[in-house]
């Protein structure tokens, strides 16, 4: 430890946890490129993801008691410098993202080997790590502009990762291009919004912003800034009418990438939306409440039904899952728009539950694609017989998607219904149940194809490789486990919701 004449207390490793969670994969990405060896790329990426995961578990354990960690980049106290601010809400999101990455990487190893040429392997993992880093950085940061920078790290790498699906189907390229255009418009809207807030307040730190916005309730610049931030992030979230980039991007991306972004990217965007709605702006502001009530809620409901309907009529398993994702985002937004602690708890717990559910299902489809060459229902006929283990996981994931008791999906819907009933909005509770019935239909279609049909004669009858089945079953197991043992997820989600509802904390100048 360096002892200087200038007073300075040395930080211990524990103090560095908030930045370490992002830094580990951040460092691993250039290392993978620098080393450039195919066989080393995967172990490095996996170790980095595992490191982040361990750190995020420690972080969550640390902040569960309601403590808020503040880490000052470069030693500069906010609002001058950039701050990482960890409370239960983002510790939980960090945990979701890193856990998904840890499980998906072994799966990716098996699927990338088949889907991509060998010479691309190191760069692929570098980009995967960058996308992962970006998502973690977005979740951890307490600075509005820094959020934009990390959002762009993850977006840019995600565009390329999706375009790599072009080796299987050229439509991945146009899907990536459309996502690039829409994502960049969204990001630009977001900086317009940040610019407006900055103009009205003179600061970029979220906690500082919140304190200053509270003093300016009727400022039209802030109102417009709010609108731009919501629309900009809404494009990333894929709120129903802004979802156009999503179906093709999920469908044509490489299998591991579909699973990863479906489980994490939109979830992190939902978190950002929550952070801005509740921590930067406060719901007791008239304009925030009105936006939630008259804009977000109707579109959430519309999305739940419209996207589910479209999902029913798909012929492609992956596209069906993509549309179902849009519908599920509707549930999260619905929870947010109820503006109550229970509603927010439902949204956060659904973040987690839907992430593991969709990760399971997309990994299952990826395993199917590996053997059948396509994700059309026709080419998946009879997979239940040739790939029994994988298909059993599909059943678990499907049940969780519907929200059958005993699975993770049930918990979030149950809390959501409770939240609606709390406010005597029984019609919303009914709509949630009704849209779950639509989920029954589209999941049943998939199950019917996989189990009720005979496999074609020329089909590859080998089961999926073990490297795929294990991650799939870890996720499927999680769907069941977290459907029965709810204290961890529900507890963390409730703490996170309480933290968010309590509004922004004071500016922490004394932290590290």
């Amino acid at each position: 430890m360096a002892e200087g004449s200038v007073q300075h207390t040395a930080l211990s490793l524990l103090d560095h946890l908030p930045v370490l969670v992002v830094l580990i994969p951040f460092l691993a990405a250039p290392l993978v490129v620098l080393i450039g060896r195919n066989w080393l790329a995967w172990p490095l990426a996996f170790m980095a993801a595992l490191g982040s995961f361990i750190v995020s578990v420690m972080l969550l354990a640390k902040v569960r008691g309601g403590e808020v960690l503040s880490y000052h980049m470069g030693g500069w106290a906010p609002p001058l410098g950039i701050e990482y601010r960890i409370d239960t809400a983002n510790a939980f999101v960090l945990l979701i993202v890193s856990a998904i990455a840890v499980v998906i990487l072994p799966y990716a190893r098996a699927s990338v080997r088949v889907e991509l040429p060998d010479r691309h392997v190191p760069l692929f993992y570098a980009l995967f790590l960058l996308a992962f880093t970006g998502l973690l950085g977005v979740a951890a940061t307490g600075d509005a502009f820094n959020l934009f920078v990390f959002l762009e790290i993850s977006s840019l790498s995600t565009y390329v990762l999706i375009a790599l699906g072009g080796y299987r189907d050229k439509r991945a390229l146009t899907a990536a291009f459309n996502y690039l255009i829409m994502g960049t418009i969204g990001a630009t809207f977001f900086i317009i919004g940040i610019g407006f807030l900055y103009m009205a307040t003179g600061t970029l730190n979220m906690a500082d912003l919140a304190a200053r916005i509270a003093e300016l309730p009727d400022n039209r610049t802030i109102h417009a800034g709010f609108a731009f931030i919501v629309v900009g992030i809404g494009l990333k979230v894929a709120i129903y009418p802004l979802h156009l980039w999503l179906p093709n991007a999920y469908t044509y991306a490489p299998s591991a990438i579909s699973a990863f972004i479906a489980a994490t990217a939109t979830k992190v965007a939902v978190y950002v939306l929550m952070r801005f709605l509740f921590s930067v702006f406060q719901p007791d502001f008239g304009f925030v409440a009105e936006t939630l009530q008259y804009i977000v809620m109707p579109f959430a409901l519309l999305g739940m039904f419209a996207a589910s309907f479209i999902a029913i009529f798909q012929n492609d398993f992956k596209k069906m899952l993509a549309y179902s994702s849009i519908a599920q985002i509707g549930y999260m937004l619905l929870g947010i728009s109820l503006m109550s602690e229970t509603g927010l708890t439902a949204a956060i717990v659904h973040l987690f539950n839907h992430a593991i559910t969709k990760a399971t299902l997309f990994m299952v489809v990826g395993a199917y694609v590996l053997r059948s060459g396509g994700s059309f229902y026709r080419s998946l006929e009879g997979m239940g017989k040739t790939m029994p283990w994988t298909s059993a996981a599909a059943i678990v994931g499907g049940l969780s998607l519907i929200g059958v008791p005993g699975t993770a999906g049930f918990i979030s819907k149950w809390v959501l219904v409770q939240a609606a009933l709390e406010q005597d909005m029984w019609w919303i509770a009914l709509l949630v149940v009704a849209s779950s019935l639509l989920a029954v239909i589209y999941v049943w279609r998939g199950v019917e194809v996989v189990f009720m049909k005979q496999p074609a004669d020329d089909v590859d009858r080998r089961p999926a490789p073990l490297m795929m089945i294990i991650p799939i079953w870890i996720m499927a197991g999680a769907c069941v486990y977290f459907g029965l043992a709810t204290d961890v997820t529900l507890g963390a989600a409730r703490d996170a919701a309480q933290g968010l509802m309590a509004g922004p904390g004071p500016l922490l100048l004394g932290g590290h």
Partner: protein
Amino acid sequence: MTEFTLSFIVGHMNYWLFTLLMMTGLYIVVDKGNLVKKIVGLNMFQTAVFMLYISMGKVTGGTAPIFPTDMNIDPEAVYSNPLPHVLILTAIVVGIATTSLGLALIVRIREEYHTIEEALIQKIELEKATREIREFGETMGGPE
């Protein structure tokens, strides 16, 4: 409510002009079918946003935020706000990164589709989708 005095209008004209420029860029992105033009529009949209940022940092009578080299700072000197400059430097870099990626994607799209017109690409994709539905569709009632 705001009073539209002359000083208000003159003082806000810059924002409105940049808004006009921004919307021109956005219109090109949304309306034009040529992929290269979309990227150009995106650039224009972003550059106009940068102008908006930079213009909010300007102080009347101020100069560029660079101290004299000997660091003898004149306490009377007025400097423009450096923070928007810093943000926009970052944003420009992000912008060029996006542009280069978009152009690389266009090159790949052109190689696969032999066109960079959105309308033609959509036509090709529609044909492909129709072919697929003919081949893979109707799983439900199809022959076993």
